[in-house]
């Protein structure tokens, strides 16, 4: 066993101090040591984004950081996004817009979307797609994910009928996205 290093990290509002191997990845620390299994591992090459978390409010891929690099920093995972039992707007929007199917990319996709909106609160469809470039989804074809992010940017408020309005949102998006003529 390699030598250990002590780290102190704030994760989802709780401060943890642990001895870790220097080679332990942040995502492994979150999942295996803290039980934060909401953050998932989808690849080995920083391509899929399933492991995306926030480090001091900025999205990072936690498979591409060592746990020791998070020493002294604040980490937010998908499990820390809802506050006082109330879903964050993006979580609600993903639900309302049917922006997830198998759900495996969802934690990373939501965390990246939050970061995207923080940097650019009113993105176009193209800017949303470009901003999510590092997060792969194999189920949704992205259209409803884009709609969900746009709906948060637009401040859409959902009713409590339990019935989706995503069709309308997608139509609105098509209208908004008229500047977008193709994929590049």
């Amino acid at each position: 066993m390699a030598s250990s290093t002590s780290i102190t990290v704030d994760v989802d509002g709780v401060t943890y101090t642990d001895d870790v191997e220097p080679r332990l990845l942040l995502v492994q620390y979150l999942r295996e040591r803290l039980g934060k299994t909401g953050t998932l591992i989808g690849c080995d090459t920083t391509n899929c984004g399933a492991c995306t978390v926030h480090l001091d409010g900025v999205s990072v891929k936690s498979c591409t950081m060592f746990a020791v690099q998070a020493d002294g920093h604040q980490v937010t995972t998908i499990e820390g996004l809802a506050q006082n039992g109330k879903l964050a707007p993006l979580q609600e929007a993903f639900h309302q817009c049917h922006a997830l199917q198998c759900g495996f990319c969802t934690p990373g996709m939501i965390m990246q979307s939050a970061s995207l909106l923080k940097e650019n609160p009113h993105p176009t469809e193209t800017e949303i797609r470009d901003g999510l470039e590092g997060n792969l989804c194999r189920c949704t074809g992205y259209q409803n994910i884009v709609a969900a992010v746009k709906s948060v940017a637009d401040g859409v408020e959902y009713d409590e009928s339990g019935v989706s309005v995503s069709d309308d949102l997608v139509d609105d998006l098509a209208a908004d996205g008229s500047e977008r003529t193709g994929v590049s």
Partner: protein
Amino acid sequence: MTTTAESGPAGAGRADIGRNEIGKARLRKEDAHLITGRSRYTDNMVLPGMLHLAMVRSPYAHAKITAIDVSAAKASAGVLAVLTGADIAGEQGSLPNVWPVTPDQKAPEHPAIAVDEVAFSGEIVAVIIARSVAAARDAVELVDVDYDELPVVMDLEEAFTDKVLAHTTLESNKSATWVFDSAEAGTGTSVEDALADSEVVVERTLYQQRLIPAFMEPRSTVVDPTGEQITMWSSTQIPHILRFALAITLGIPESKVRVIAPDVGGGFGGKLQVTPEEIITVVAARRMGKPCKFTETRSESLQVGHHGRAQVQRLKIGATKEGIVTGFSVNLLADMGAYLGLITSGIPILGAFMYNGIYKFPAYRFECNNIFTNKPWTDAYRGAGRPEATFAIERMMDELATELAMDPLELREKNWIKHTEFPFATVAGLEYDTGNYEAATAKAVELFDYEGLRAEQKRRRENNHPVQLGIGVSTFTEMCGLAPSRVLGALNYAAGGWEHAQVRVLPTGNVEVVTGSSAHGQGHETAWSQLVADRLGVPFENVEVLHGDTQVSQRGMDTYGSRSLTVGGMAVLAAADKVIEKAKVIAAHMMESSEDDLEFANGAFTVKGTEQSTAFGEIAFAAFSAHNMPDGVEPNLDSEATFDPVNFSYPHGTHLAAMEVDTETGHVSVLKYVCVDDVGVVVNPMLVEGQVHGGLAQGISQALYEEAVYDDAGTLVSGSFVDYLVPGAPDLPHYITDRTETPATSNQLGAKGVGEAGTIASTPAIVNGVLDAVRHLGVKDIKMPCTPSRVWHALQEAKTSGGVQ
């Protein structure tokens, strides 16, 4: 949305029972835990004393194993055991292939850990069992394997010549030859005669590249051998089939195996498999007496998870000068890879019934040679045989239209089955029950602005615009709802195609639905709740759907082939109907009336013509308390049903793609994509839309982005997400989707299935569009994926070979 038939079977029968749930875009019950990170994927599982596995894999695509030295690995920190194929030869059995397509099908033995010979790069030669994943992976490097390299055969057409054999134990690379001939089957005439007599014959060879399913969740398996029963959690689409397969492969009584598919992160056919890793994890756990976990890396997943497609299609289509097709001949080479997986051999055969598409062909012949190569085995991938068939016929219809200088839509219309001609017995031997190709096409043409885009195309051609425009047409149908058990029997498939369900009524009147379908993203919990809420008149929120655990859902055939609603959903409805029948007896007793005088609507039995009624919840409690049951009636409302379809269902649709091709760079982009699908009666339009979007993404991606690429030595070059292009959000267009609705008659709901539709139709639409943009420049074909490099080279070759400029 256009309804093209007023009432199908959906309108019949129990239409009186509050139909308020069918067709409602209910938000998903599955979402809450997934959006908050409370997910239960297999790799999240930790059990006391759990050990971790790592696989030692062959770097060679074909070699003899001459020696394995595991001593250094065994001595490595944290390692408890290392097992080779020889160590477990007596217990590992041979992985199952349940679809011997011909009586003389040849297949090599398929041990989970290779014993003497490896036949593809990545095949497992040993397993490390250690206290941590890191310790297990560290020790992989310490296993010393001596190999004698053997010649490899990677190319399918070369493999067909048998010059190099993929296995030293087999005399030929040919596994089986499967033929359908309409003249022999009595479904049509001789295709040879038809082609000989045709005024026009177009002959082409098309290539279906090898694809990787690339579900987002890498496969993971946990096995707990403690206690008297073995419990497996696995990232699988098929917990029931897996349980059966583990029992027969390892000789464990089926009753001693429990398989649980918890949250499963996508499958697309890629998790329709019994894997070596699953077998090895069971063997390891039994040996160690402790829970064991194996989770693959993404590289392993891409390298050795089964692949899809991989066919060479040699095609001949004949027609009159007016464009009436006279016959279609299909001759396939299908790449099995090195072994036959669960249904590897049957995948191309599933396509055999679909090469005639939506058309009235008088003659048809299909021949498929299943061929071994030194690559991982192929098996189901979204569409499984049917995308390949649709690609072939839709590409050929465009080639024929070009030959005849005819609009591709006009050619299709001349040949398709008219809506007045259903039910229609096809030349491939199926009976299409319903459809309305005219309606779907008309709607697609309107949404697409077909005439406007053709005019724009003409302008760009006349101006010699550097970015040329092409219009890709694809019409399709598919056989969904796999499958009538008798048909599967006739095709020599080992199992049936039924599905099972239970409806359990709790004392409160809440309802538990147990389904043999095994969802991995489709939204069954939501849709099945709608079905039962609709049928029993109980609130949607009061229905709980249980699935994916063989101890909870004892019988099932699982999820693939767009079968869940059309087969599994019908079993749910049948079980719900039995609940109503049971409740009726108790309700009549409670109201002291005759059963014949009762009607059931909106969750209550009412005595006809009176105000007297008893709610479902009251009956549920009466059955629970059992204080006042009629004589001889059991005190519960639970029921179960097994549904076996009498026919497939046949969704169809028309997809139109406007493709821009930059003739200077070869860059291709989707300007506009319109699809109008007819998937019959829709339970939840939001879920249907989601399935269509995801299907389109995968089909478009086959056309433009994805390919499993190998070097000459047999190593996968596209072995990570850096090299295997799973498209991201910027790589895909905004889809314009719509539906028409022609109810199916093969099930009481009128549903058809939607899981594979988008994938099947979109690939030829995109490629037809790309070719339509550059055909006038002399380009005749571009192999998939149509990358900028391939398009650019095709344009350069056309220039140098004197193509029209």
